[in-house]
Structure formats: C-alpha cells, structure tokens
C-alpha cells in the first residue's frame, strides 16, 4: 500500500506540469496587461515598457515558461507577486491555513448536521421528519450563500451582538463563516446520505442483522451507515477539494484572508505568478485530498482495498522488468 501511495504522489508531477502548461497558455491568450495594475493607469509608455522588461514579459513565451519552471524545480521558487513583490509561495502559505481551517470546520459542521438528518430521513422515509429535513436541506442548497451570510451577520452581530461581525481572532469569529458554508454543504450531504441509506437499508444484510436480534439503532448505524458511507465520503472529498480553492463570498463578507480573494484579485490584476502559484498549490492539495479519499474508501470498504493492492503490484512488476 505504501507503494500505491508513493505512486500516487509521483503522479502529481505530471499533473502539476500539465497545470503549469495550461495556465501559461491561458496567460498568453487572456486579454489584459498586468503592467496596468502595477504602474497605474496614468503611467507614461516608457515606464510601462520598462516594467514589462523588468518582469520579463517581453521575452518569448517559451523563454518565460522555461525560466519559470527552472526556478520552481531548482529553487522551489514560484516567483514574486507582480503587485506586492513578495514571494508567491509565502503569500499563499499565510492564506492557505485560513482556507483549510474554514473548509475542514465547515465540512465537519455540515457532516454533524447532515448525516443524522439523512439517516433519519431514509429510515423514516416519507414521514413528516423526512419531508421536513429534505425541505431543510433543499433550502440549504438553494439559499444564496451571500444572502445567508449577510442575514446571519445582521442577526447575530448587528441585532443580537452575540458574535463579532468580522475578524477571526477568537473561535467566535469563525462561527458565522463556518455556519454559512456548512449550511450549504449540509443540504448536499443530507441528500447524499439519504439516497445512499435508502439503498443500503433495503439490502439483505440489513435483514440478516435484524434477524440476529440486533437493536434497530445498531442495525442502522453499524450495518447500514458504514455501508452507505462511500458516496458520502466521495461527496465530502469533492467538496473539500473545491473548497480549497477558497470561499470568495465568505471571505469577502467576513473579512477572512483566504485563498479565494487572493486568487480573485490575482486574476483580476493579471498577476500571473500568483495565479500560477495558487493553481499549482491547489492542484497538489486536490491530488492529496483525492489520495486521502481513496485511502478512506479502502478503510471503509474492504472490497476496494484489493484494487490499489493490485495497482501497487503492477508498479512493482514493471520495476522488476527494468531490473
């Protein structure tokens, strides 16, 4: 299995190379000039030209590409932001923890809220509980995030003064943004859980468990939920992967310094080093998340373990051939 993990980690290299190529290509064809945001709209043409020269924007694109990749490979240097002149890597690393915390916390909150809801809905199918919780989760999915964010801000910060309106100095500052993203995910997770549980509780092994004289709760949780987890975990993995790209709306409403606003600003300013660095980091993070999810699948469902075991062997065999 270690082999499998190493193999998957090695696979990230072509992924990242592909991402770098695509982003470079996009930076060529995207209209807009990063120099504008650097020297200002009223800078004389000579100054613009000098700035282009300084940034290396006048080099042919393949030279720029080689320079960029060589710097990454030899020095781990993702370049400096056009706007701030700071190393992109450092800038991202101060922001990534915020996004990671927000993502993990909101997913946990969403899971805590949604899994019981989904399970109860499936078990009490078509009851009022089912209808109510599905209506709730539909609302969670369909309420616009910015609206929910502003309304909770209005209620908890402006009217009730229970929570701070901005700043994440303490735990209390995290409550609203986590809740805002969590509620959106909650609806999604609850529906997945319900659908998956509905399928599972009709399986024969659930009847077997009942025939053993097992309590209903144990039947549902131990025999049912564990089998229903795969689609839920898959969904959670996707959501985490997407969320790592940043929560632009939550960041802008609750004044969080996350990856989302950073990337948005970088794209708007055509700040290519930041965009490229950010996307490479996201590609790596996404690959790692997907690897973790695959390992989790195997931990949940032993049938899937054989899959990566055989992949590991394939890898070993090829090595033997070479030797």
């Amino acid at each position, binding site marked *: 299995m270690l082999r499998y993990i190493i193999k998957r980690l090695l696979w990230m290299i072509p992924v990242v190379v592909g991402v770098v190529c695509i982003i470079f290509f996009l930076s060529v064809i995207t209209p807009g000039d990063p120099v504008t945001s650097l020297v200002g709209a009223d800078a004389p043409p000579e100054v613009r030209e000098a700035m282009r020269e300084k940034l290396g924007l006048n080099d042919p694109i393949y030279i720029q590409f080689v320079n960029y990749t060589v710097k990454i490979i030899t020095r781990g240097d993702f370049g400096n932001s056009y706007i701030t002149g700071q190393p992109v890597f450092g800038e991202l690393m101060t922001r990534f923890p915020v996004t990671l915390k927000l993502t993990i916390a909101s997913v946990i909150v969403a899971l805590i809220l949604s899994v019981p809801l989904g399970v109860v809905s499936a078990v009490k199918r078509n009851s009022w509980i089912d209808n109510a919780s599905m209506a709730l989760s539909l609302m969670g999915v369909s309420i616009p995030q910015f609206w929910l964010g502003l309304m909770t801000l209005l209620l908890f910060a402006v009217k009730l003064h229970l929570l701070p309106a901005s700043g994440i100095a303490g735990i209390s500052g995290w409550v609203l943004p986590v809740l805002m993203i969590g509620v959106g995910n909650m609806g999604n997770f609850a529906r997945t859980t319900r659908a998956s549980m509905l399928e599972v509780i009709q399986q024969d092994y659930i009847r077997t468990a009942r*025939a053993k004289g097992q309590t209903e709760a144990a039947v549902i949780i131990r025999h049912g939920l564990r089998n229903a987890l795969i689609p839920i975990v898959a969904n959670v993995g996707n959501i985490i992967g997407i969320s790592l790209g940043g929560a632009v709306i939550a960041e802008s409403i609750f004044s969080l310094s996350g990856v989302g606003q950073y990337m948005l600003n970088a794209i708007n300013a055509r700040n290519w080093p930041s965009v490229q660095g950010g996307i490479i980091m996201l590609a790596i993070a996404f690959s790692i998340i997907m690897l973790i999810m695959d390992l989790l699948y195997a931990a949940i469902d032993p049938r899937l373990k054989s899959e990566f075991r055989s992949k590991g062997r394939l890898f070993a065999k090829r090595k033997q051939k070479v030797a």
Partner: protein
Amino acid sequence: MSDKVLEVKNLIVHYETEDGVAEAVNDVSFSLSAGETLGLVGETGAGKTTIALTIMGLLPKPAGQVISGEVLLNGKNIVESSRSRFKQRANERMMRKLRGDDISMIFQDPMSALNPVTPVGEQIAEVLRLHNKISKAEAVLRATEMMELVGIPGERYKNYPHEFSGGMKQRIVIAIALACNPRVLIADEPTTALDVTIQAQVLQLMNGLKQKFNTALLMITHDLGVVADICDKCGVIYAGQMVELGSVEHIFNNPSHPYTKALFNALPSLDKDVERLESIQGLMSDPMNLPPDCTFRERCAEKCEKCVNTDPPLFETEPGHYVRCHRIAPAVEAEASNAKEAAK
C-alpha cells in the same frame, strides 16, 4: 402437544400498499415439533417467505400487517395482530430477544446476506454477544468454533465476505443462524442461489447440524427434491393458502390436491420417458384481487361447479393429511358419515 415448539394457527397476513391490499397469507396453520423438519413448497409469490418473515417478526413495515391468527413459540404467541403502536413496539422488543436466539432464519441469497464491510467472524460473534453474556474474547472463540463446525477454517475469522465463495458464505450464514442454538430454524430457499454441486453439501450440513442441536426446521423451497431429501412433513402453499399438508410420505405417495399433482407432473422423472415436461397452465391469482372462488380454479384440471364462489376448507383425508379441495369433500364426508353410523 407440549412437544410442539412452533405452532402457526389461522394466520392471515396482508400487505397494505398505496395500490391496494395484497392478501399474502390466508388462514395458514401448521405445527412443528423439536427435531422435525417441515418443508413448505410453492411457487414464487405464493406467500412462503411472508410466512417465514411473520414468524421472525420481520414483515416489512408499515406495509406488512398480521390481520389475525397466532404463532406460538413454545406455546407463547409471538405475533401481534393489533395495530396499536404501543403493542407493536412491545412485540418488537420481545422479538428482538428471541430472534437469533430461539428462532433464526437463513436467507435465500448468501451473496448479499452478509455485511460486506465486516469480517465474517465478527458477524458470527455479534449474534453470540447479543444473546449471551460473554466477553469479547469468548465470543471470538465460540464464533471460531462455529466456523469450524460449518467447515470453514477458523483462521479465516478476519476475512471479509467478498473473499469467500457462495457456498462458503451460505455456511457462514448457517453458522450465524445456529450460533445460539435456536429452537426453530427457518431456511428460506437456502440452496437456490448455489451451484448444484454445492447444494447437496449445504443441505447435508444443515440436516446434520439440525439433528445435532435437535432444532425444528422450517424449510421453504420450491424444490420437491429438497423436501424428499430432508423433510419429515410437507406443506404445499398456493396463493397464500395451505392447499395440502401431510407427511412426506402422504404428499409423495398420495398427492391429493390438483396443484400438488400438477407440481409432480412438472418434475422430470428418471423412470418415465417424456418428451416435454408438463407445465401448469395459467398464472397464479393476483393476491391483490383474489377471486371468491377456489383460488386454484382457473388453472385446475379437475374443477367442478362447486369451485365457483366457494373456497373449499381443508379436509383431513387420512390422519395428518389435509387437502383443500371440493373433490375430496364427498369422500371425506362419506367416510365421516360411515364413521358416525358405525358409532351408532
């Protein structure tokens, strides 16, 4: 009749769905003594599995509902025909203690009857720990014993169901069912899903264990061969009714109901040379819409005017042999009047 561990009396079960009421089981009675094996035969949809699930208290809720009748386990009623939620729950609590302990069930498809994400040993240990106050280690020990008993090496305790073949999975299902040494074992077509070569092994294993534990066995099957192999008694179910019930000898030597006869005619035989097997014409009546007639009338080769609008009762044609057919009635009545006259 204290040796009767299981007695089913006038059981009526309905499935109440949005589309209507399906009369799945209509007035079925039979009994089973310790160590005895009763085969329930009938085609798909006849209500055999419903009977088994009713006894187990595992009728799908809320559709499945016992309308009337009793199921006595050691003389104690274990079904609740009241719709009161309170009584239903009380019954469920009681059944939870009995299931897997006094009464267990083997399901049709071993491929899906085991939890795919739990090691098989643990699945056996689970039922042991539910009904016995034993430590985890002891449960593991006894589960391993059970595995050995059904012919699976104990070191495979930690293996998952997908690592076993169908026959071995069924052995594990049997081990789960017999782990707590139940009084009554219900086997719902335990061999249908298996290869023919494995079927005999599994049947032998069940029969052997049944005798070892002196368990009463209710064998649900559509295979008369299985009945001949291991059953003492046999009941034939048609459209939710017991149409014929008797000892294996009664049924095999003297099949009296036209349906039973038709079943035998549909069997391939080694000593008869037939070009085509006979099949029973028509389809079984829709349980949603049972006719007031004898339910077999439409397909019956021997139907008469009496079969219209009246459902025949069970007649006892010889001691312990019951048949539900108007054709039998005159003979039985004559016999009865003879007996009366003789008494006079």
